[in-house]
């Protein structure tokens, strides 16, 4: 999947990996890393919206760690 208009495992895994590596990380940084590593260009709002969907996973999920600070947590 070349953009973030659909949910897909590949992009979800990419975002989780970026956040895990750079955490705590801002959505803007994630957007830059997606472009740099995968050539995946997306609006910041779209990146944030995608990341919000990744907050409802279990056991691994994205979580807010303060205003515009994202981390990966493993609840299981």
């Amino acid at each position: 999947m070349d953009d973030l208009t659909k949910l897909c495992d590949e992009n979800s895994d990419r975002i989780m990996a970026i956040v895990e590596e750079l955490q705590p990380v801002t959505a803007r940084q994630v957007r830059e890393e997606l472009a740099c590593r995968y050539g995946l260009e997306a609006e910041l709002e779209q990146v944030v919206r995608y990341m919000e969907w990744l907050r409802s996973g279990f056991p691994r999920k994205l979580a807010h760690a303060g205003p515009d600070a994202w981390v990966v947590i493993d609840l299981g």
Partner: protein
Amino acid sequence: MGIDTFDGKEIEYLKEVLASGRLAGHDEGFKGKVESAFAEAFGVKHAIAGNAAMSLLIASVYAAGAGAGDEVMCDPLVQFHAISTLWQNARPTWADVYADNWLMDPESARANITPQTKAICCTHLWGLPCEVDALRKVADEAGVVLIEDCAHAMFLPYKDKYVGTWGHIGVFSLCQGKHMTTGDGGIALTDDDELDRRIRSIIAFGESPPHLATVFRMTEMTAAVALVQLEKVKGYIEEYRKSYAVLEEVVSGCEWLQSRVVKDGCGNSPYIFSCLFQGDEKGIEVEDFKQALFETGENFNIGFTQVPAYKYKLFTQPMAYQNKGCPLHNCPYYEGDYEYKDGLCPTAEEILPRLVNTNCMIAEDDAKRVADALSRAIAQAEGK
């Protein structure tokens, strides 16, 4: 983000605080004023201003008398009470929720009370009220403290009173994204002089506390903003009720999305709009609906936390206190069963992965846009 604005007396009051040079919360200042204003607005004897609802939940669990070897009954859909319980070195236990409104079932609470139970913590989840009169009866019969978590429930009516005044203690959140916000902050309400004293005794001290305490008090700047927002919040909630109705209309017209039941005597202070996915009964895959919701570009969510809080490793593993075992594992003071088995709260386990949520603290016009998006996603999932 809600529709709240900060263009009233907030700046005037903040300048007054800064000019005074007294920034720490004090009884003669805005902290005292906001405590009096909350007490009057809710018709209770005491309101206690803190730096966060979490701090006040921790203090409330302490005030209830919970410590090592004790239990506090918690809501499995959220983790905040259980975290507060761990802070007092006590063990969370759990009561299941109703399948029709996702709120704590008083009979499950009754069934899970033990001689070690010191408190029941219920949540008025996402703006609908628990059967807090029945929960109070359960608590009183067992001689334990009922703590109402009102973080999603500002000025939420239940029968003839607001929630937060039915239990022994009610805790409200003023953090970002709540009905009224001061960035961070919280208010605890109680009619009980001793509970008021015990909460205050651990949330603030000057130099040498007589027992273990910390500083959870509200600053004057926070209280100044809170005092103004308190005058505005009922107006915000009125708008959110209209937004809720707009979203509810869409769900009530869908055969495979189950609305939350608002029972007789229950008001609504909308926070998150939630319904239950039942599409599998109609041959609709949850993943298809999830993708359809995502593609609308609006902020929906399916599955919330997926599992009840008692499945989090924070509660299943001995990690809370540096992996030393306390308070859940090998605690010499605790004599109960510390394992949280699958099926502990079957209804919570069943509904959580199927909850469809969206923010409804939005203006009515925005809710119409979100409702249109929801309608499109429903149609797409149905293959129309």
